[in-house]
């Protein structure tokens, strides 16, 4: 029998029992949709948590701590295998004040290597990089945190700096938090560039980025006022960037073996992924139970279909249909139920998922009654294609397994008994 004739045959039978087949498909659809939607919550939460982690830091970043970090060590780190860049940032750890045209702000001085920064995404939105020790680049939110000194303390809204920053000079002063007066020494710095905004829009970058050449000058001011030999003006942190995600673990492990304290987001992600793999597998398992329940319906429908058609199957066999063909026709019928049920379920699941992501955040934020939750970035449900594939495979396989016994039963029908049945 040709394949299209087999399809025709199956279709004709299904048409004859529309309602019964419809109800069976409905059950299969509900089971499969339940599985997909349930598991999609696992995927949604996993994704939300991953993004939460990834948004804050870079994945291929390894934070390295060492009590005696210096430029020599940094140079050594740069030469290691699979290391793309080593960013050695040193920040001033005491009180700081900047003043520009009567606007005052408190910006943090960070000394870094611009070439290394550029390798891992540091870029300018305006201007150029510093060429001498008194030229600096400022963060994208520098101007917003410069506040007009006259309005300070008044009832009026404090006004911030609105004009272009490029080429402007400002004075930079330091002081101790525990003392009211700042150190009297002023350093005059020129803004030559403005850094690009950070990727995440809630991150404010108000830093002053300078070249390491400025450090001796600032250190001299610091030691002029602070006697304690143990205290330092600059505190450094080193971030090593692996050339790609796969090598992060290798790089961080090698550093750990050499006695560095390291922290990388990749390690944390790995744990998260393992946890969620188990979590999602659990959800798929629970969903599969729903499909198994639906499969009872398929089993019943197919058993009835075989019983009803005993005489017809007998005639088919009598005129020369092979048992294999009979079995295939019935398996096709149960597979058809499974396939149609799955297709409808996938469509419904995407709909439910879409609506859930639309409505649930609103319900949650209303329930919590807090405005900040409206901006909460939670995805409740995600249906990746892998989930569709897994659910379809489970659903269609279960449908075919439950159609297996009835199909076997059909092949075993005795021709003589069947022909003897009354019409």
């Amino acid at each position, binding site marked *: 029998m040709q394949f*299209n004739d087999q399809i025709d045959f199956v279709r004709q039978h299904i048409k004859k029992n529309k309602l019964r087949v419809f109800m069976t498909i409905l059950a299969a659809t509900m089971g499969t949709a339940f599985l997909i939607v349930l598991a999609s919550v696992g995927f949604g939460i996993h994704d939300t948590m991953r993004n939460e982690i990834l948004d804050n830091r870079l994945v291929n970043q390894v934070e390295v701590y060492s009590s005696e970090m210096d430029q020599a060590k940094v140079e050594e780190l740069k030469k290691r295998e699979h290391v793309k860049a080593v960013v050695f940032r040193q920040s001033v750890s005491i009180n700081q004040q900047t003043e520009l045209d009567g606007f005052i702000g408190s910006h943090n001085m960070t000394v870094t290597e611009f070439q290394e920064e550029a390798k891992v995404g540091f870029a300018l939105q305006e201007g150029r990089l510093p060429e001498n020790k008194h030229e600096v680049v400022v963060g994208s939110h520098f101007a917003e945190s410069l506040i007009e000194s006259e309005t300070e303390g008044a009832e009026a809204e404090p006004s911030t700096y609105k004009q272009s920053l490029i080429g402007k000079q400002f004075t930079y002063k330091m002081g101790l938090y525990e003392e009211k007066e700042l150190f009297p020494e002023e350093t005059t710095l020129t803004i030559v560039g403005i850094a690009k905004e950070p990727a995440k829009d809630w991150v404010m970058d108000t830093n002053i980025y300078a070249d390491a050449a400025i450090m001796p000058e600032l250190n001299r001011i610091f030691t002029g006022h602070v006697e304690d030999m143990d205290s330092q003006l600059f505190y450094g942190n080193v971030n090593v960037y692996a050339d790609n995600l796969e090598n992060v673990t290798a790089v961080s492990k090698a550093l750990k073996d050499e006695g560095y304290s390291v922290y990388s987001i990749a390690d944390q992600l790995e744990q998260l992924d393992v946890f969620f793999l188990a979590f999602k597998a659990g959800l798929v398992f629970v969903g599969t139970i729903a499909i198994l329940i639906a499969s009872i319906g398929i089993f019943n429908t197919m058993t009835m279909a075989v019983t009803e058609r005993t005489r017809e199957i007998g005639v088919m066999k009598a005129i020369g249909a092979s048992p294999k063909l009979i079995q295939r026709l019935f398996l096709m019928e149960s597979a058809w139920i499974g396939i149609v049920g799955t297709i409808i379920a996938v469509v419904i699941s995407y709909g439910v998922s879409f609506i859930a992501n639309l409505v649930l955040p609103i319900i949650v934020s209303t329930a919590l009654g807090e405005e900040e939750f409206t901006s909460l970035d939670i995805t409740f449900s995600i249906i990746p294609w892998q989930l569709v594939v897994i659910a379809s495979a489970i659903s269609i396989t279960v449908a075919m397994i439950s159609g297996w016994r009835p199909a076997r039963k059909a092949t075993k029908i005795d021709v003589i008994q069947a022909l003897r049945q009354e019409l």
Partner: protein
Amino acid sequence: MIQVQELTHSFKIGKKGKERQVPVLKGLSFTINEGEVVSIVGRSGSGKSTLLHILAGFLKPDAGIIQIGNVRTSAFSEMESAKFRLDHFGFIFQNFQLMPGLTAFENVELPLKLAGVAKKDRRKKVQQLLQLVGLTEVQDHYPNELSGGQQQRVSIARALITDPPIIFADEPTGSLDSETEQDILLLIQSLNKTRGITFVIITHDDTVAETADRIYRMHDGELTEGGVHHAI
């Protein structure tokens, strides 16, 4: 064409544990030649249908050899048997055994579908046969919209569609009135003459049996060849 040697068969009857064997066929040997119409006549319950079921491969005999052409069909598996039926046998049953969900046309077409003949090659052949049995007018009717005679013609067309060399007919006129019976018997005669098909007709009715070239008489599980015993 069909050679049968020492064919025996018995049925187990009775409740489990207390079964007993009831012999139905007690060592039959006979031959049916190519192109003849043979009737097997006997009382109801004498084992005629059982014999046909065994010849057709629906049932495995207890012992005996069946050779059709030069193939030993008694050694077939279920699979081989089905394939052989599709290629070599046509069937006409007392209660027609048409598919209720298929039209006359589709019923006749079914064996071609099973044989894997493409749709475009089926149409013409089915129409030819429907014309031959005089059913062109009602080809789109379902079996329950046809008279008994018409239904039997559909089943004859279905039996002919794959051009089988042998057609088995089990009480082909058992459900028909005597006038229609004559039509069907004449149709069988003419198909035998024009197409050279071998017919094996099973009947309990002597007048039906008499239309055959040769008659076998089934009695008490034994088969004897003989003329028509008119009045016993």
